[in-house]
């Protein structure tokens, strides 16, 4: 297996993670912690697959995943932002709910051959560029999107005023509110759009990576996505880097299993969580000095008149 092939496989493995983790990043930057990533991805995966089965178009499936992820996120937003339920408890409930709901909806589609899948692009001459050709330009559009998204998000956070507002939302919502910027509305918007991204991440699994519908198709990727957000210290490019790193581990693991390599694949499975723990410890240490930690108001519902 060539290096090019390994890198290409790593990017493919990292794509569902990247969408989900960047979705979670957006939500956490707005000050909400959504532990229901796994559930939201599953909803997206099943919606995407069924959408493609019904319409015969993989892209209609992606759209269905986007919309259903957004709806699922909207429900989460109502519970945590408006009703101010505990975000951790609600998130865990949404994980379980998403898993159950997706199994129920998708029961008739298990093992059904897909009518449509997402195809790799043919960019002609670009596909023949050494290394970049097969690794990047030969991929499907969702992989390219996953590469582009962190760049756009990073620019958004760094250079736009709305990005500044987003960061302030997670740090000190009361400041944002006192300036007359609508905290509740914006938090809804970010939870919904972040959840839509998670839905797309799920759809990538059922429409391109596997591609078919099986129960619990995400197999823990939602949790890894949450870990990646912390690993990347809430910065889009770092989070994407983490996703690629894990994609690489995934690709290597695959190879290891094929080659009867002397490293236990379970050990490799554990690595992302171990890395996250390490980063958490470092973040906790540097938090006192200011810059690396998560949003200060993360996990706290905003209630203007609380005193």
């Amino acid at each position, binding site marked *: 297996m060539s290096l090019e092939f390994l890198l290409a496989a790593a990017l493919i493995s990292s794509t569902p993670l990247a969408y989900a983790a960047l979705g979670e990043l957006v939500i956490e930057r707005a000050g909400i912690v959504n532990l229901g990533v796994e559930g939201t991805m599953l909803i997206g995966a099943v919606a995407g697959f069924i959408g493609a089965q019904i319409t015969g178009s993989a892209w209609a499936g992606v759209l269905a995943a986007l919309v259903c992820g957004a709806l699922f996120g909207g429900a989460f937003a109502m519970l945590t932002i408006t009703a101010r339920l505990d975000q951790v408890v609600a998130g865990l409930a949404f994980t379980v709910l998403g898993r159950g709901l997706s199994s129920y909806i998708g029961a008739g589609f298990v093992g059904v051959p897909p009518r449509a899948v997402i195809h790799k692009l043919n960019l002609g001459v670009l596909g023949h560029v050494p290394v970049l050709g097969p690794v990047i330009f030969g991929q499907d559009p969702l992989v390219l999107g996953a590469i582009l998204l962190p760049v756009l998000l990073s620019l958004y956070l*760094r*250079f*736009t*005023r*709305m*990005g*500044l*507002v987003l*960061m*302030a939302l997670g*740090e*000190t919502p*009361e*400041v*944002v*509110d*006192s*300036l*007359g*910027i*609508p905290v509740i509305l914006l938090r809804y918007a970010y939870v919904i759009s972040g959840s839509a991204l998670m839905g797309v991440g799920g759809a990538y699994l059922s429409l391109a990576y596997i591609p078919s519908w099986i129960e619990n198709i995400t197999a823990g990727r939602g949790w890894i996505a949450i870990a990646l957000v912390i690993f990347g210290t809430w910065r889009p490019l770092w989070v994407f880097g983490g996703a690629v790193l894990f994609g690489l581990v995934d690709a290597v693991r695959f190879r290891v299993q094929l080659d009867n390599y002397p490293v236990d694949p379970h050990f490799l499975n554990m690595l992302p969580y171990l890395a996250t723990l390490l980063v958490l410890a470092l973040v906790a240490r540097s938090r006192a000095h*200011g*810059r690396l930690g998560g949003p*200060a108001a993360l996990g706290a519902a905003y209630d*203007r*008149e609380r*005193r």
Partner: protein
Amino acid sequence: MMTAGEPLVRLERLSKRFGQSLANDQVSISVPHGKVVAVVGENGAGKTTAMNLLAGLYMPDSGRIYVRGELLRPGSPRDSVRAGIGMVHQHFKLVDTMTGLDNISLAVDRGQILRRRRTSPAIDALMREVGFSFDLDVYVWQMTLAARQQLEILRALLSAGTHLLILDEPTSVLSALESAELFGRLRRITATGRSVVLISHKLKEVLEIADEVVVMRAGRVVHAGPIGSVTLFELGRLIVGDRLFGTGRPPPQRPGRPVLRLDHVRVANDLGLPAVEDVSLEVRAGELVAIAGVSGNGQTELMEAIGGIRELRGGSIAKPHQQRHRGFAYIPSQHLGTALAPNLSIAENAILGRHRSNPFRWWLRRRDVDSFARAAIERFDAKAQARQPVRQLSGGNLQRVILGRELAEDPELIVASYPTRGLDVASAAQIRNVLVDHAAAGAAVLVASEELEESFSIANRILVMHRGRIVGEYRSDSPELANIGRLMTTGVAS
């Protein structure tokens, strides 16, 4: 529409209730163009609430707000900002992890797509005009408190067309020199035709800077008029009120041995600024001593230092101990959180701190816990069940539970920080009697109180605190009210 003589802002009979307490009761305030209006009153008088209503942060229960004669939509920070109202809160509303420029960008660049990268000529001009000098590219958490305040004021002024600047206790974080600078800048701000509302309980500075004064007491406006119409002493009286000084009886004084002694104690507040400076005092057995003063002059910090939950910056405190444990009763001003764990039951709260003494030790038998709790509840007739979570209790019953626990072993020293704050009349009277009874029975009692009336009715001696120092001592049988009022507010007796 704008009629002649219409003030810039007019609050009309605003009322706001928080749970049981009426924070604002039919409050009406007018702010004329180009003037500094001071809103003064004790803590909890409703000054900040009224201004938060104006800033749209709270929704009024009733009443109206007019800006330039036009009705303002209530409860909308956005509409208030648009109407030209900018507020600098006592706890700054800045994003600490961003630079000064970012904070300004958040407030002023509405509708811009890109984030601001450098200052504009308008910002530079305004900084020069008002006389600000601080670096906008520094992160807020690295700025001094004075710089943060300047940033807040700058931001409020930059928001499109701010015509009214509200400052909530602006000098509480400033040194005397910085305060003087601030007042100079406020003068420059009003010179541009803008108005300023200054919330304060430091009367001296109010007389210095304000054109008009509004006095609030217990949620109501009790006086409003030009600053020249009242003397400092009258202001003090208006703030404290014409309350009848009670007929309660202090304990008969048979001065015993000193139980609590403070020597040159210095304590810092949460911001690291000096709160208590060089306080020396003594409380003897059988004596009830009250510390009086306007809130925020270091009483809370002093009581916390005595209670052992705030570190000393200097000096020493001699108090009764029993093997590493607190050997006296401490009743903090914050019931839930400091004295009681809100989500635990009353029974569990009642044994906190006692859980290692007999009969508990290693094994908490339910029977023992319950009977101990019942005793603590019944000691002062708290209306509560032992298994009930503490957070469900009213203020009076919370205080009864705390007293029931703290006074269980007849301590020789009782330190109580604002023990009757927020309580109804009957509960407050009961708690005062309990304190007096214990003093009469030989305990040394030290109470911080914001009500002079209360201090006079129960204390043998009254110490007046101002700006972290004890500035006067009075025996309660010689009430020199005029002096105490002045001392509390200015720190200087006539």
